[in-house]
């Protein structure tokens, strides 16, 4: 719940930034994998496949950050101590997203992802604009590029889908009973 001062990006070193980048990508991988699992469990195969694919892409990003980080010792940061703008890591699709539903369409999934990627871009952009350290600005710009590519990719995907008609989440059947 920490809201940093906009002037103070909170990120003081390259290692610190790399730790953020890594956390951001790892969170994204885990979130997409969880979403893919959820969709599989709920028999929404198409969307499951999509989330799985997004997780794969994020895994590449993790590798990328790991590569860059070679030779650095990253600091440990508690989950709630990251300098995100919001409580959540920006690139993780929101678990409170409106479209998150067992009958969601690929459109929703991509829209969710797009939103998350854009937040990722914003995070780095903010750093590039605000940080008073050159090495940080440079690295942020570099990392941002990967995210921007991802945004473009997703925009392309999204264009291929119509927004689903109203009532897409209507399930005529009642919930199933449990314990």
């Amino acid at each position, binding site marked *: 719940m920490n809201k940093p001062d906009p002037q103070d990006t909170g990120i003081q070193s390259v290692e610190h930034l790399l730790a953020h980048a890594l956390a951001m990508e790892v969170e994204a991988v885990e979130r997409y994998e969880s979403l893919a699992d959820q969709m599989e*469990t*709920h*028999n*929404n*195969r198409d969307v499951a496949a999509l989330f799985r694919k997004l997780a794969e892409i994020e895994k590449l990003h993790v590798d990328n950050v790991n590569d860059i980080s070679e030779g650095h010792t990253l600091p440990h940061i508690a989950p709630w101590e990251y300098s995100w703008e919001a409580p959540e890591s920006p690139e993780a699709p929101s678990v409170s997203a409106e479209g998150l539903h*067992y*009958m969601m369409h690929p459109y929703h999934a991509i829209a969710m992802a797009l939103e998350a990627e854009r937040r990722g871009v914003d995070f780095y952009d903010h750093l590039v604009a605000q940080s008073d350290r050159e090495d940080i600005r440079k690295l942020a710009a570099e990392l941002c590029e990967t995210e921007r590519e991802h945004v473009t990719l997703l925009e392309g995907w999204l264009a291929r889908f119509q927004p689903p008609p109203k009532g897409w989440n209507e*399930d*005529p*059947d*009642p*919930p*199933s*009973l*449990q*314990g």
Partner: protein
Amino acid sequence: MTARSVSITFAGSGGAGVMTAGNMLLDAAGRAGWYAYMTRSSGAQIRGGEAAAMMRLSTSPVQSHDDRFDVLVAIDWQNVGRFSAEIPMTSDGLVLGDPDGGEFPEQIGAKGARRADIPFKKMAKEIEGGRPNMIALGAVAGLVGLPEDAVLGVVRDSLAKKGEAARTASEASVRAGMAFAAGLPACPRLAAAEGQSERLWSITGNEAAGLGAVRGGIRFVAAYPITPGTEVLEWLAPNLAKLGGVLVQAEDELASINQIIGASYAGVPSLTATSGPGLALMTESLGLAVASETPITVVNVMRGGPSTGIPVKSEQSDLNIALYGLHGDAPHLVVAPNSLADCAFSTQWAVHLADSLQTAAIVLSDQSLGQSRATIAPPADPGFRAIRLMPEGEAAERYRRYTNTASGVSPMAVPGMKGYQYTADGLEHNEYGTPSSAAADHSAQLDKRLRKLAVHDYGQHWADIEGDGDIAVLTWGSTTGPVREALERFRASGGRARLVSIRLISPVRPEQLAAALEGVARVLVVEQSHGAQFHRYLRAHYDLPGSVRAFHRPGPLPIRPNEIFRQLADWS
């Protein structure tokens, strides 16, 4: 190829609307004068899990499943394989599915039934607002020969609130399905409906239990939700209110049972419904109802046990706790409905008996009765009411609440009756209700509480007895449906056998059962429990004639008629 009964399963994943299709088929069949029966199964997910609506349509009353299914329609194949054990197909059964509906599950394929494709998704796309499940409904209606107007009538009524567009789309979907069916391989068509004089009802066993409760006079209900008992309570909530009665949601089962004890003590016939874990929590206070002679009724809708077990599946394994779960010697009533429709009768009878005998009654229903839906001939009100013996006139001397009458039933005053104040007590007491540990009082009160149950005239309702011959099948509850069917087949194959389905499980009726089994040389006991609870109970309390075999197995799979038929055939 016409048949008197056809079995169909709709399956698909969450959102596909298989339950809706099933319900509509059931209603349509009912309107066309056919009897129909439907159970449901679904994955462990709360929503969006795979689901199956298992249906049976028949020209005569039907409230249980056949051995196998003639038709399986899968709107998609996502995870439908998990139902394979639940939907055995006939060898020439028809498996219908969408080639775009995911991978065909091997378990289903392995059964050797015929397969045919039906492109639900594609067809639905071609209709504005078209719905795969409505196409499936149409296809099945077409296959089994359900009149189009019956189906469309149901569609119209169900979608009345959804507006013109939705209705038209669904109608078109149904028609497309029916049209498609014409080109499908043949499967058994249902024989023409026998003319029904009355319009049928569509009802679940849990609703029927609720109906029986209010018919019997229940006007106070305390509720704590639990699967699969909840729906008895959920049906009662609005309907009790309409009758000027009250339902209170309690904090737990300890509270709900005591609330109904309180309300009943105050003079208002009272009931609660629960399932295994809830019943377990109630046993201490069931004993209080017995000892204080306060009438109450508890509907226990059994599910798979032990512990949390399998909440959504049926089993007859709460017989022991219902009979013996109270500490001390605490005789009480246990009544078991033996069909979906009988949930109404048995509950009403139990309510009547509880009040007549001033004791606790447990109604042992189960998930397969409670959560199944059927079209049934409207059950007439058998007239049983919760009526208590009350003291009359002015109280002359100190009121003896627990006076030791010949019948064992003592006139029971309720608050408001001047001069009849007494204290109800769960401690052993004398006739006034004053605590006593004297041997004479203890045995007098124990005798009285046992006697009132023993000497009551329960009429013919203690059991359903059918047929003759020197083989008897002894069973209870939901297992009665398949047993009855097995016996029909056995008779059709030239055998002779009786059915005795015991409705009044407690108190026991040794003389009546002996009479019912007169001349019997072989007794087959059938039940759905791992521990053979019913068989053990029979041994404990009855002398069964001739040689006895027990056929018992646990849930979650229902016992099929053929399993029982084989037992009979092999024994002959």
